């Protein structure tokens, strides 16, 4: 058996044992529909509301401001379309950045086909959004600024407080996709002036298919899913109870151990970065040197192409990704790497390694050792590499 090293924690994480244990009773025993009047239903309703409180506490919101969704993409779609359609009498202009997740970008592109105008802000070579351009882009038609908290590919953390302040000063709603940030960063929606915030459970050792949207009280937004009266009439559909319970446990665990988690991962990350730089030539670290998610490592390896790198690593038991998981299978290089100014051919040769709570120092050593071999082998095959 070869060693298995999972280094794609930004794509998704395994469910932690404590999380699954908490979910289990809700499949076969506590299965009551929370909208029903009998105790079997009231019990699940209460369980969900406890999670709502947990999630709210973690980001300093009120429980009634937390709405459960089927994941981060739904939260992004809801936030952006919901604000756009509810405020179109006020204006039709939305500001976002060039490095958003496709959940935001493709939703904005959809709106562009439907009468809205979208400004896609540039970022600098580290992936930080251009603040001057943000300020200059705001017009009296601007209804929403949507800037992600931390980037899924290069890990760069945005100056969210500053953006929140600009949004508030200009009376524009501020949405942030915090799918990568939740579980890694302390977030205070009050202090940061955030009006809407997207979360997803499966990025923090919770189950797939569940997430939440924080909607500040008073924000004018349309429901996205019409139907039953669930989620205070704003998000129809029988609640994914085991999912929500798992999300609650996952977020609780994450914030109980946030400091250790961050310290451990940051150390592993910095070792991985250092070891790659020291052992492999013609590499480039992508993303900000320190305003960066604790588990994120993203390198470009010149003269080789990302997919063959991934396949080679997979043969050695290493799970990694090039660019965002959602676009692999696509033949275009990552829009994020292009936005930070990488030429196409360099962007094509990029590798994302994202560390998680189950990784060890031995994992890092094994990956570096494997990378040295694999990169060398592929370069030997490459017509671009002259040794």
């Amino acid at each position, binding site marked *: 058996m070869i060693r298995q090293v999972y280094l794609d924690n930004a794509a998704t994480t395994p469910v932690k044992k404590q999380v699954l244990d908490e979910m289990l009773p809700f499949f076969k025993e506590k299965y009551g529909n929370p909208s029903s009047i009998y105790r079997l239903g009231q019990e699940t309703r209460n369980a969900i509301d406890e999670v709502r409180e947990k999630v709210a506490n973690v980001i300093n919101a009120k429980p009634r401001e937390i709405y459960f969704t089927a994941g981060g993409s739904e939260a992004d779609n809801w936030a952006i379309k919901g604000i756009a359609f509810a405020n179109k009498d006020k204006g039709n202009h939305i500001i976002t950045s060039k490095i958003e997740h496709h959940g935001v970008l493709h939703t904005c592109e959809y709106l562009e086909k439907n009468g809205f105008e979208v400004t896609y802000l540039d970022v600098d070579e580290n992936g930080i959004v251009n603040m001057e351009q943000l300020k200059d882009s705001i017009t009296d038609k601007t209804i929403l600024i949507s800037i992600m908290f931390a980037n899924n590919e290069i890990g760069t953390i945005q100056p969210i407080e500053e953006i929140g302040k600009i949004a508030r000063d200009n009376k524009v709603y501020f949405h942030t996709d915090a799918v990568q940030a939740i579980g890694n960063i302390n977030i205070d929606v009050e202090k940061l002036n955030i009006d809407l915030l997207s979360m997803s459970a499966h990025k923090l050792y919770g189950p797939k298919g569940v997430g939440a949207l924080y909607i500040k009280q008073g924000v004018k937004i349309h429901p996205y899913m019409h139907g039953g009266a669930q989620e205070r009439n704003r998000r129809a559909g029988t609640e994914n109870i085991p999912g929500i319970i798992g999300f609650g446990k996952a977020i609780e665990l994450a914030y109980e151990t946030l400091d250790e988690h961050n310290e451990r991962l940051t150390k592993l990350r910095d070792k991985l970065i250092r070891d790659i730089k020291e052992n492999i030539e013609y590499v480039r670290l992508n993303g900000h040197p320190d305003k960066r998610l604790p588990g994120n490592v993203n390198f470009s390896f010149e003269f080789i*192409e990302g997919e063959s790198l991934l396949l080679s690593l997979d043969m050695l038991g290493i799970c990694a990704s090039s660019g965002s998981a959602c676009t692999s299978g696509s033949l275009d290089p990552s829009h994020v790497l292009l936005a930070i100014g990488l030429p196409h051919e360099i962007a094509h040769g990029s590798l994302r390694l994202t560390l998680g709570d189950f990784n060890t120092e031995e994992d890092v050593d094994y990956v570096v050792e494997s990378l040295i071999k694999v990169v060398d082998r592929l370069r030997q095959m490459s*017509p671009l590499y002259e040794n």
Partner: protein
Amino acid sequence: MYSDKVMEHFMNPRNVGEIENADGVGQVGNAKCGDIMKMYLKIEDETIVDVKFKTFGCGSAIASSSMATEMIKGKTISEAMNLSNKAVAQALDGLPPVKMHCSVLAEQAIKAALYDYSKKYNKTIEGLEDFNPDDDAHDHDHAEEH
């Protein structure tokens, strides 16, 4: 995603390398698109006696290069000219639809090398009359469904 055959050729590619003083050298693709394939041919008596390649590209590009070189080694020029990308893909037990163009690259790289040979030695090769080495041989399919 890939067949065992593809993976086998990807992990153990045949004929990697360069040929010094090759009789024909062809390069297709484009680093911008993430793929470049370079083929070297040694030709004696209308027969491809040796072939090597270097490829910057995805797994199926590397496997296609390897398979294609295997398929033309020891064959005549006209046999090599008849090698289609479909035959390469088939020999690899198939490629995913979005990866079919990688096998096209292999076909085109061979043609480009033969074209170079024909120019160098002033020969006409049937089927290369309209060949333009500067055509971007492969066309990435950027349609919606990838």
